[in-house]
């Protein structure tokens, strides 16, 4: 952002309401320092563990990028939780029968299709996205279960698993490449293009956007399609890393992803958000998971702590909005 000619007053204003924008970086730092001290003998600070955190959060980060677009437009996409599994299974099955390219296209296509279904219902039938995607979340959870009768499908294509999972390119794991590329492209589209500006305007004031010549339904369709496609990509990354696809993939990600996006400074009601914030939010959620496991917390305790953090994040988000 160019701020060269921002006046002193503008700076003052900017500083005043950026608490929510920066809270994620402070939170990330605080949690990192906490674990670094508490878990210094448990291997938290090793390069292997830290890079593991990034690898494990890659699918959630990719989904979070899509959700930033959705939430900035004032909508929500709950269906990503089951889109991941449908996409992974579609890719795994197609991969086995028709080869690599068909498999990748099937996975991304499944995500895109689900996104377009959600988007059409939200944009043109004008149903609330919360209800639409709550319904499709359940619907596609059922589809993913029936696709292979609950069976897990192995993914043995080494090109696929290398490209989307365990591969290394120029010394950097492919999952980190995917995260970096998705964040970079997402950030540029979100911050620096007319589309990104129109997404924000739509979430901020749909009527104003509409009378300004922005096609609000098209924006709504587009953000849902982006979210679905990125959930599809997340499905491919899971299938690549785990070398298998199963209906349980992504099942527990929904809450993590929503938390990452909100903690990252994207307002629940739209109009303001950050892709970089969502990345840091996602890494923070992953670090939290990792640290809590290293600390020896049970799964149930982890869920409680995560829930509390989401509550705190939502509280900050809503306070900022109503100011």
């Amino acid at each position, binding site marked *: *952002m*160019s*701020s060269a*000619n*921002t*006046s002193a*007053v*503008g700076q003052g*204003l*900017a500083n005043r*309401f950026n608490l929510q924008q920066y809270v994620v970086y402070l939170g990330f730092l605080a949690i990192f320092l906490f674990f670094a001290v508490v878990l210094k003998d448990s291997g938290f600070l090793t390069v292997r563990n830290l890079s593991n955190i990034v690898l494990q959060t890659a699918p959630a980060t990719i989904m979070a990028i899509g959700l930033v677009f959705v939430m900035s437009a004032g909508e929500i996409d709950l269906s990503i939780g089951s889109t991941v599994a449908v996409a992974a299974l579609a890719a795994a099955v197609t991969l086995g029968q028709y080869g690599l390219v068909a498999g990748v296209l099937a996975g991304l296509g499944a995500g895109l299709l689900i996104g377009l279904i959600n988007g059409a219902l939200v944009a043109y039938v004008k149903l609330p996205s919360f209800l639409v995607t709550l319904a499709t979340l359940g619907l596609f959870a059922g589809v993913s279960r029936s696709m292979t009768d609950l069976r897990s499908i192995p993914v043995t294509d080494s090109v696929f698993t290398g490209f989307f999972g365990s591969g290394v390119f120029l010394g950097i794991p492919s999952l980190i490449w995917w995260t970096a590329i998705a964040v970079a492209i997402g950030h*540029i589209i979100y911050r*620096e*293009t*007319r589309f*990104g*500006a*129109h997404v*924000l*305007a739509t979430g*901020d*004031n749909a*009527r*104003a*956007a509409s*009378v*300004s*010549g*922005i096609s609000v339904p098209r924006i709504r369709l587009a953000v849902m399609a982006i979210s679905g496609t990125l959930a599809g990509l997340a499905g491919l990354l899971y299938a690549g890393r785990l070398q298998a696809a199963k209906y349980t993939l992504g099942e527990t990600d929904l809450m993590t992803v929503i938390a990452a996006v909100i903690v990252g400074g994207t*307002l629940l009601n739209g*109009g*303001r958000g950050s892709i970089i914030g969502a990345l840091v939010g996602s890494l923070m959620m992953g670090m939290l998971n990792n640290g809590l496991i290293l600390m020896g917390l049970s799964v149930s305790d982890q869920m409680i702590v995560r829930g509390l953090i989401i509550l705190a994040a939502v509280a900050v988000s809503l306070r900022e909005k109503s100011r």
Partner: protein
Amino acid sequence: MTPTEANAPVLKLQDIHKMFSGITAIENFSLEVHPGEIVALVGDNGAGKSTLIKIISGVHSPTSGTISIEGETVTMSNATMARSHGIEVVYQDLALADQQSVYMNMFLGREPVNGFGLLDRRRMIAETDKLVKELDVRIPSAHATIRDLSGGQRQGVAIARATHWASKLILLDEPTAALGVAETAKVEEIVLSLKRRNIGVLIISHSLDQVFRLSDRICVLRRGKQIGVRETAKTDKNEIIAMITGLQQQ
């Protein structure tokens, strides 16, 4: 500034008739607005002012009658078409995106991009700064977020936006309804400065004092009927009030 014959009207409405499912909202409405002229549209609630604004801004199309812009008959089926004819509307709710910056609002829906297809922020900020200075809209900076501005500043931004894009006509719907005394004076100054830009202005206002301060001509509507048009300099409040209420037919 009285329009001369040489000045083609920027807007000419002829025998505009509008029905909504069998009910007449506007009948036989004719009006001309010339460049640099401020015409006030007055009338009681439900007189049809908003319907007229919507017809001129392309939201509704008239059931019959013609709209001409600079002598050319146009048909408009949406607000985008009206904008492409150089007509801008400042809505009563201002239609600003509160959480975005002033400069993004100035260019809402019409953001310039550079050769890479990326937003040309530098240009948006420079043009915003220039216009805000010319119109003397006192905002902290082009980067300020709309929700941090006062009501008068927001109105100023909305009018500045309309001014930036309107080549011919600006419709102002109750521009000072929500403002205090000082802010109203400031906004009226800005409206008057539009005359110098040779833009036609059609303003809806409930304040007759304001109408008499700003307008060159006053058009009175009552229950969808055009009661009459008066030159502001040659009429007085009593006559206009009588026309609005119908208590004394002219």
